[in-house]
């Protein structure tokens, strides 16, 4: 059984910070089978007008889902999850990588045993996912 959690409108989820480095991008490319070179090859990234290699939008989205999964305990309670990809997360070839800071808050009770959680993922002080939300079963 999942331990009872507080999921009232306004509840803030414990924040999450995730550092993405080049090796994380390569690992995600392999696991997801998305081998687009803009996620690992600096030359290709710059050729298409990007400042440097960028993280897969789907990696940022996956990392942001962790804030909900870790809060709710049972990741199977996430019945819906969506976002728009607003800005790229630029990942330099160094030991620092890119820091993605994730916060989230319960914003709506659908009164059917599910709640809406709005998620914000920020990189360099700016939101990278737009309108990210999860619908989570809490009962």
């Amino acid at each position: 059984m999942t331990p009872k959690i507080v999921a009232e409108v306004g509840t803030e989820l414990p924040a999450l910070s995730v550092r993405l480095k080049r090796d994380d991008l390569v690992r995600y490319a392999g696991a997801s089978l998305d081998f687009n070179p803009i996620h690992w090859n600096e030359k290709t990234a710059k050729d298409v007008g990007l400042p440097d290699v960028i993280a897969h939008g789907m990696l940022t989205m996956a990392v942001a889902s962790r804030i909900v999964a870790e809060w709710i305990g049972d990741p199977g309670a996430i019945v819906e999850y969506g976002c728009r990809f607003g800005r790229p997360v630029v990942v330099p070839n160094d030991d620092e990588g890119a820091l993605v800071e994730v916060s989230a808050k319960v914003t709506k009770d659908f009164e059917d045993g599910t709640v809406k959680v709005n998620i914000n993922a920020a990189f360099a002080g700016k939101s990278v996912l737009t309108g990210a939300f999860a619908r989570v079963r809490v009962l």
Partner: protein
Amino acid sequence: MPLDPAFTGRSYPPSTPYDVSREKIREFADAIGATSPAYRDAEAAKALGHRDVIAPPTFAIVVSMKTNETVMFDPELKLDYSRVVHGDQSFTHHRPITAGDQLVCVAHIDAITSRMGNDMVTVRTEISTVDGELVTTAKSMLVVRGEDA
């Protein structure tokens, strides 16, 4: 050249089944840094009411990858892959994807719109078991940047 909105409503044949394995789920969970025991430990997953280990919420993108490529490389659609940017993504899980599932994807083009020189293609992929149980609905909006955009 702008995409032809007449492709709205087009459906693609079902994919060959994708076998969801515990190992692939673990590999994917590792790659996103996810720690939940439900992704790695069948007993922990069972204690939460699942049949076996379950997949993270965005794992469906791996399952539907081949099908989405079928749409992107559809010669009749004439979509310039080099100009495609992932605009948005959503998943509706009718139940979690679970190790042992054999999943079939059927892609549908739900919308083709044009705005400020860019084409937007919305692809809905229905992911079901080989026995016909609907598991996940994945929606991707792809932006095809216009020549001048």
